[in-house]
């Protein structure tokens, strides 16, 4: 097997691997939503509720722990 063939096989299997990863990710997203582990759809509100004065949807932990001056 010459180098070109090895490259071609490597390319094919790498592509197939990435396709599996992508589908696994899609499966993960929908299963997490269905099982209630994580509600992805709520993040759509980040665009609507975007005033600096309103409460963040999920506040960063560190800033929560910082004592208010």
């Amino acid at each position, binding site marked *: 097997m010459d180098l070109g063939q090895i490259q071609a096989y490597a390319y094919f299997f790498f592509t197939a691997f990435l396709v599996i990863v992508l589908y696994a990710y899609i499966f993960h997203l929908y299963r997490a939503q269905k099982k209630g582990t994580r509600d992805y759809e709520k993040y759509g*509100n980040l*665009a609507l509720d*975007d005033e*600096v004065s309103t409460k963040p*949807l999920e*506040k*960063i932990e560190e*800033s929560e722990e910082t004592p208010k*001056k």
Partner: protein
Amino acid sequence: MGNQNPLAYDYTVAKLFLFTTVLFGIIGMTVGVLIAFQMAFPELNYLFGEYATFSRLRPIHTNGVAFGFTVSGIFASWYYVGQRVLKVSMAESKFLMTVGKLHFAVYVLTILLAVVTLFMGITTSKEYSELEWPLDLLVVVFWVLWGVSIFGLIGIRRERTLYISIWYYIAAFLAVAMLFLFNNMAVPTAIVSGHGDWFHSVSWYAGTNDALVQWWFGHNAVAFVFTTPIVAMIYYFLPKESGQAVYSYKLSLLSFWGLMFVYLWAGGHHLIYSTVPDWMQTMGSVFSVVLILPSWGSAINMLLTMKGEWQQLQTNPLIKFMVLGSTFYMLSTLEGPIQAIKSVNALAHFTDWIPGHVHDGTLGWVGFMVIAAMYHMTPRLFKKELYSKSLMETQFWLQTTGIVLYFSSMWIAGITQGMMWRATDEFGNLSYSFIDTVVVLHPYYTIRAIGGLLYLVGIFIWAYNLYKTIKVGRDLSDKEINVNASPMSAN
């Protein structure tokens, strides 16, 4: 981060980029219309000696609209959307504010120098990469500054989750950085060999390799300048303007990864029937067809966001711009893969169908989205009501007519041209000479130029409307600004 004072978003840098979006839009598109008329009426090439020839002006048009108008619009929207969805103000970091201003200064300097050098005929002759190495270095500087701004703002954010638009901005930043660096690798001839002007360079790659790298870059410039950051914009501005959360956040995530995965491999379709290996051409074709899925995933997601609220299409011209924008995105992401199929490409390659395809994407999708984003931002940036809704309506219909004239004439011209080039008589001789095709195409070139002119008139209306908004628009209170639909005067 202090949160003891009433905090407000700081739009200083967004305003600066808003001005350059309008300015470079006018320059780039005026030149575009001129060269479109030159195609129909060649005498127009001799208006200003060498400086107004088609070959000198064409790179000014492409660079002006892509790296002037569009990139300015992307930056303006970043300095607006970035703060809002991360819930952090630029005013909270002196460092980021300085970076933002420096980003703008280096960017404007680069684009102005680009215009001057291209007018002078200084070019690498690589399509969409015409700028010589000293300017490339400046591009690197302002691009890195943008990166510092993106990751700096993310670093001090209050909102933990990065909204989908931020993902797209990050992708645009990273991918363009990689593409730009590799495609512009060049050897400055004066430094290395003592020959040629100090600014002159030759590509690091040679022959077919140069072509491959060039179109890997060229097509991904479409991906990461004309697509990903524009998708970032529509994912924010359409939900915000309509008051409807994105139809499916999960679909937005998987379309994102699908787009990232597929787009980078599609560039080979520019080199079908050339000297690159056959498997590479096939790969370019296949990935181009697969690309329909993630592209339509985003576009359908946008259209479904309007579910139950379609009456807004009648009442709000900004929704019109954005909905038609995503529809044109669907059209051009279907048309592109069709052209990438080998048998279709045999007919379409080198014909006017290609600029037709480019322009239904850029005028319909990119242009409309940038126009809508700037319209949405202006009342918030200046606390003024948009000057005229009826002017926006006029602009919309003029420009839509212009786009339809543009792409329909180029479809007809391209297919006619392709058919005439390949026509042979019973003995296998070519039926037509090149000039025969030119004679037949002349009316379509005229129609295309008129279509472009209509779009340009729309750009002037847009600039006028924004100018009047800032100058004489009714002052708005904070309460009037903090709404979804952009406040606009009905006159």
